């Protein structure tokens, strides 16, 4: 059976060049970057070169980059670390209803430490209004955390504007850039944020590596203690092959971004046009202009997203609905619901996220399969028949 992967927002395969770059750091240059001897020094050099390389691309200082285990840890560190370090100012956080669970649950966990969270609602396209943010900020607000682009609908926020609002009132601003890094060009100074999370495996890097950018002089408390690794902000022996892989993945993403982005845009447009012309009663979810080029979310009326995902998987096409959890079960999408889309329509929403290995030549097969499966599901849907 033909297998087509359309779930690149969940994870991506490691790029061959990334794999090649990492290889020497498992068995040859295996040293502990903190060791004094030559083995250690070699590892340290590789780690710091990776850090510098990333800093050049993101336009920040190397000391502002902390390697972590991935997006979730970066979000946790940014939110809890800055919350605990700034309690003298207050115990209030502002976030949005469409954040990744790593952000929402981090904020939620602070409740027991006496923190309050204001959760901003997006408009029907998934955009967070700077005016709403301004109104939500209180004298005791210590942090605003709003994602750069959403993982389920791909909608991009106006981060420079939102960060500016936070800074007007002297509040720290964090953004989860897991879904934009490698997909759209940005630099830290353009965004104007204090903290930014990146995950390696979303951009053809390895799993188990990510980074948190922390602007100089930002008051943040470490969450794990031990040695003085990562500028005393994250104890633990450094993941040298991971850092090398992440740097390479970022290099490749920025190198190929223009052409790859154009290719993806063309492909997604062809796909969306095909769906529109071949399948009735669909709704495009999220902002169709301010959107990462690889992601499209479509709700198919009167069918369950779960049945679509399973049917397509059995035909070899991998898509997703809602957000995956550790059990692999599909939970209802808090993101699509937050847009004010009725629950019965939201449950029929599917995320198609294309990537480097997606081929324009496959679009017809995808459309054929999708059309057949939706028609079949609707033919047995009492909801659709009764319309």
């Amino acid at each position, binding site marked *: 059976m033909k297998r087509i992967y359309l779930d690149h927002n969940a994870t991506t395969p490691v790029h061959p060049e990334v794999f090649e770059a990492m290889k020497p750091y498992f068995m040859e240059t295996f040293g502990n970057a903190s060791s004094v001897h030559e083995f250690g020094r070699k590892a340290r050099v590789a780690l710091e070169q990776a850090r510098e390389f990333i800093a050049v691309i993101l336009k920040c200082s190397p000391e502002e980059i902390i390697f972590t285990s991935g997006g979730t840890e970066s979000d946790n560190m940014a939110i809890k670390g800055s919350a605990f370090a700034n309690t003298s100012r207050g115990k209030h956080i502002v976030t949005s209803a469409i954040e990744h669970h790593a952000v929402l649950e981090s904020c939620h966990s602070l409740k027991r430490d006496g923190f309050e969270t204001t959760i901003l609602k997006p408009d029907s396209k998934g955009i967070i209004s700077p005016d709403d943010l301004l109104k939500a900020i209180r004298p005791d607000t210590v942090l605003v955390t709003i994602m750069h682009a959403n993982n389920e609908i791909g909608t991009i926020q106006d981060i420079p504007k939102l960060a500016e609002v936070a800074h007007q009132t002297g509040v720290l601003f964090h953004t989860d850039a897991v879904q934009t890094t490698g997909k759209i060009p940005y630099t830290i100074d353009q965004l104007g944020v204090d903290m930014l999370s990146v995950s390696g495996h979303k951009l053809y890097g390895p799993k188990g590596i990510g980074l948190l950018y922390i602007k100089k002089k930002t008051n943040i408390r470490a969450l794990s203690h031990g040695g003085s690794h990562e500028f005393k902000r994250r104890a633990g022996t450094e993941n040298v092959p991971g850092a090398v892989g992440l740097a390479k993945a970022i290099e490749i993403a920025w190198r190929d971004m223009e052409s790859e982005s154009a290719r993806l845009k063309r492909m997604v447009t062809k796909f969306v046009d095909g769906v529109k012309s071949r399948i009735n009663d669909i709704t495009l979810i999220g902002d169709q202009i301010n959107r990462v080029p690889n992601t499209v979310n479509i709700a198919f009326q009167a069918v369950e997203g*779960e*049945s679509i995902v399973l*049917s397509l998987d059995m035909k070899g096409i991998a898509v997703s609905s809602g957000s995956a959890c550790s*059990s*692999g*079960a599909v939970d209802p999408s808090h993101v699509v619901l937050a847009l004010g889309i009725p629950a019965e329509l939201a449950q029929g929403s599917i995320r198609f996220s294309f990537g480097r290995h997606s081929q324009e030549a496959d679009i017809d097969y995808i459309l054929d399969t999708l059309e057949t499966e939706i028609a079949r*599901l609707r033919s*047995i849907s009492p909801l659709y028949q009764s319309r």
Partner: protein
Amino acid sequence: MLAISGGVDSSVAAALLKEEGYEVVGITFKNFDYNDYSKDPSPKNCCSIETLNKARIVCDKLGIPHYVINRVDQFEKEVIANFKQSYESGITPNPCVRCNSLVRWPELIHLADDLGIEFVATGHYAQIANVDGRLLIQRAEFGDKDQTYALWGIKRQYLAKTLFPVGKYAKQHIMEIAVKYNFANTSYIESQDLCFIPDGNYTDVLGISSPGEIVDVDGNVLGEHKGLLHYTVGQRRGLGISSPEPLYVLEIDLGANRLIVGTEKQIFKSRFLAKESNWFIDISNSEKIRCRAKIRYRHEPAACSVIFAGSDKMEVVFDEPQRAITPGQSAVFYDNQILLGGGVIEAVF
């Protein structure tokens, strides 16, 4: 479409179906949020995240797709809420019966229909029999493992789409197949605990109930109970009363917060009313039938008359008095090996 929990029986069911030439899809229901009801991240009950991953490994070994399906809301509404409400009303529910009737089968059939799958299957020890052209549920070939007691509430029309791959085998044979396939879970010990209370600590779900008096049938106070939630009709242990002959819980009097206890002799009764019945045979023209009734999971079916009283109610009269007929438990009716139907015990006389 096979409901697979990751335990031995459903894992072997998957292998058997494959051997019989079926194309198989494995489904595991996620029925509750694991952290809500368990303090132990790896309990040995059937629905923990650990066994769920075992199901995934088994399906992968067999080369079949496996999906985890979230039915937390349905399970909460149909099973857990009823479980709590039952105990709060002083009756002893059968959550597994409700799960099969109201969650597992309807959801499996619905999903199978959506995916264009012809049959649904589970790892229950039960069989489907064709009796004069009518499909009925039959007890497992080896009676000691029979699980038909929990299946009486399945809708009649689902039987044509239902398969029970392990029902004709002895447990020993199933274990041998598990070993043959090298399913790492053969050491798995079956738990008597409920899936959503893996620690066996009911107060986690039910909360705490207040102590009160233990009395005999004449109202003489014999001791103090530690909250009515902790008792069920027929229970002997844990009463904490010394008495010349063993005492048993006869009745849970919720209104007065009293536990009524009595002797072995007093616990035998002959007659009860049942409700919410479901029948696999046609009873529309019958006033009364003779059959055998089983009144709890471990009860040897006993001869009785069932007198129909209205749409889904009936009166049941045993030929011989039976021990601890308990409100809330299922009464399940058999003609020899054939499951005729069942109902929920409402009142005992």
